């Protein structure tokens, strides 16, 4: 039992942090909004950093890192409200293609191809550019749709950095059907839920940080509003909620490698906890910003709107609470400490 990240994992986290915070600033995000840019432009750099192939085995040109380590990267991406589809491509699609031993996985790691996901739980695909392919998880089939066979129709998200598309395929390559397809769709859902949860943690942390900064600058009644207990206590509550969501997400990320009923419950718990922490942080942040928080003038809205979007992705709160409800409240469920961790070590998939 050791609930810590390895030092190599922390080093990679630090590298991701340094790069992402330099590359994506509030100014650069605002510029993207202004340009209504189709391509957010940073993917090649993420590939260069090794993030596209973070979970891809080394034999296929990736870094072969642990499922939990990617949560740290996703958290950092959330912190800067990164508009690139990092979780989608590197966290969900690449590991599934690796499991299918599909050649596209090496192309993803090498930056030659981007494959985004479409999933029955998510009505839209986001961030597609012309050359991208889509891995679609349907009820009974998993199929790969190459860019030239993709028909897309735009939909409008409140998040100005999320470009949504309804998709259709002229032609596709079937990768799995029946039970196998269902299992892969379920796996994609857990992965999506867990890493989106990690992004939510980062978004929440960033909103708390920017709100503290604002509360130290903004003066009313002759003092920084951050010196008032009402403001301090609200932020302390948001911070506490975030701190207690974090290990829930990390456990779920570590459990992704074990592919069983528990992994599903842990993913569900993570999504509920992280969505709640994210929504709570967002509402606290706008309240403390006051009127300026209700505008495009403050940076906050870019982070807040991302939280709104991600809270509904890969299974919303209802979806995951129903999974938890059905299991935990059922007669004979294994509860308490015995179900919190694994009594026996389970074999990890590479």
């Amino acid at each position, binding site marked *: 039992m050791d609930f810590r990240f390895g030092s190599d994992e922390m080093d990679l986290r630090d590298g991701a942090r340094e790069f992402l915070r330099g590359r994506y600033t509030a100014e650069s995000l605002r510029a993207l909004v202004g340009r209504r840019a189709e391509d957010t432009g940073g993917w090649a750099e993420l590939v260069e950093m090794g993030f596209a192939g973070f979970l891809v085995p080394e034999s296929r040109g990736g870094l072969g890192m642990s499922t939990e380590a990617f949560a740290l990267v996703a958290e950092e991406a959330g912190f800067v409200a990164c508009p690139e589809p990092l979780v989608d491509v590197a966290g969900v699609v690449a590991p599934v293609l690796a499991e299918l031993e599909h050649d596209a996985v090496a192309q993803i790691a090498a930056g030659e191809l981007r494959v985004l996901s479409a999933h029955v739980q998510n009505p839209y695909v986001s961030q597609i550019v012309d050359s991208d392919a889509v891995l679609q998880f349907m009820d009974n089939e998993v199929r790969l749709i190459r860019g030239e066979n993709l028909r897309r129709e735009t939909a409008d998200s409140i998040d100005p950095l999320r470009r949504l598309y309804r998709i259709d395929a002229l032609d596709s390559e079937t990768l799995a059907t029946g039970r196998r397809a269902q299992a892969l769709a379920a796996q994609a859902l857990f992965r999506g839920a867990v890493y989106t949860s990690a992004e939510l943690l980062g978004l929440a942390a960033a909103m708390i940080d920017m709100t503290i900064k604002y509360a130290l600058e903004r003066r009313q009644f002759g003092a920084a509003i951050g010196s008032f*207990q009402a403001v*301090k*206590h609200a932020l302390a509550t948001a911070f506490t909620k975030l701190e207690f969501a974090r290990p829930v997400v990390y456990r779920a990320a570590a459990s992704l490698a074990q592919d069983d009923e528990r992994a599903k419950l842990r993913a569900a718990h993570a999504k509920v906890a992280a969505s709640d922490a994210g929504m709570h942080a967002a509402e606290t942040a706008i309240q403390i910003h006051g009127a300026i928080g209700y505008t495009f003038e403050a940076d906050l809205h870019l982070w807040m709107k991302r939280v709104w979007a991600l809270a509904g992705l890969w299974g919303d709160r209802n979806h995951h*609470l129903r999974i938890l409800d059905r299991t935990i409240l059922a007669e004979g469920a294994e509860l308490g400490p015995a179900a919190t961790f694994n009594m*026996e070590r389970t074999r990890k998939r590479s």
Partner: protein
Amino acid sequence: MDLAYTSAQREFREEVRAWLAEHVPPEPLPSLDTAVGFELHREWERTLNSGNWGMVTWPVEYGGRGCDLIEWLIFEEEYYRAEAPLRVSQNGIFLLGPTLMEFGDDEQKSRFLPSMAAGDEIWAQAWSEPNAGSDMAAIRASATRVADGGRDHYVLEGQKIWSSRAAFADWGFGIFRTDSESKRHRGLSFILFPLDADGITVRPIRQLDGDPGFAEIFFDGARVPATNRLGEEGQGWQIAMATAGFERGLMLRSPARFQKTAERLVALYRQEAGSVSPETRSRVLQAYLDAEAYCLNTYYTASRIMAGGTIGSEASCNKIFWSELDRDMHRTALAIIGARAELRGGTQDAVDDGRWLDGYMFSLAGPIYAGTNEIQRNIIAERCLGMPKG
């Protein structure tokens, strides 16, 4: 990251489970805040100690087993699983014990720790005063040093209040002003005193449940040897803060306690499922998830501490989280029990012999003791988030 127990940890769990199965009293003991219950709980402490289970994280020389924090968490999980009695010695073993190990000299350690682990001496804490609650630095109780030919002692004057366990305990610990000219956090010292000393009067106070879980302590010229001072003269505030850190941090409230309550709540829900509203059902589920989150956070912190990290002001987050969780869980249980919620234990129709009602009352104290949650939020804002003092 490795989230599975090792075989040594599994064996340890089996050992604890087997011992408890053999020794835990079959019937719940009477409340430890009654004279009879207190002595029965003391007996239980002696039984625990006879198997060296009194305080597993302590070094072997003081009656412990030198367990690490993960083993401590496992021990606690088994302890609550076995529904073993509450720890009447908790102020001593969880709060003063670790403080003694950090600040006490060798003589003090060997004088006080073994008897604490054995349950022979039960400790009460004496922080608050009538005019020093959340504002603890306002304390006025004094300890005046008197030189006495190599046998120096302190003369204690003043009043302490809300002292848990003091009605029946043997010893107390608290901070006193040793420098009469001093103000606020300075000039305080941490002093241990026997509650039956001449010049000390204990007046029990009935808590919400009607039992004297608190007492008021009056000091009228009581004399204690200078060797009863922990640490340096004037270092009292710093030592008290360390004690409060243990209290809020990991040791006072292990996650097993709340996971057990959450399991009982789920069982209660299942029993009454037919009459429970969807809203209450969702609260049951949320309580279960939050209890598990508390457990995860504790293992996460424990792993960090075992690798040389420390727990700082984030201990305040823990205290807020468990105390509000405990209140929510008990409130939800009472909502399920409905019209029978007011029935006291011993009444024919009382659900679970009134345990939920007792637990609810006690849970209301959680956000108040060990530093109110308002004070905790100040600490988080000022020390974790870098916000200014108001």
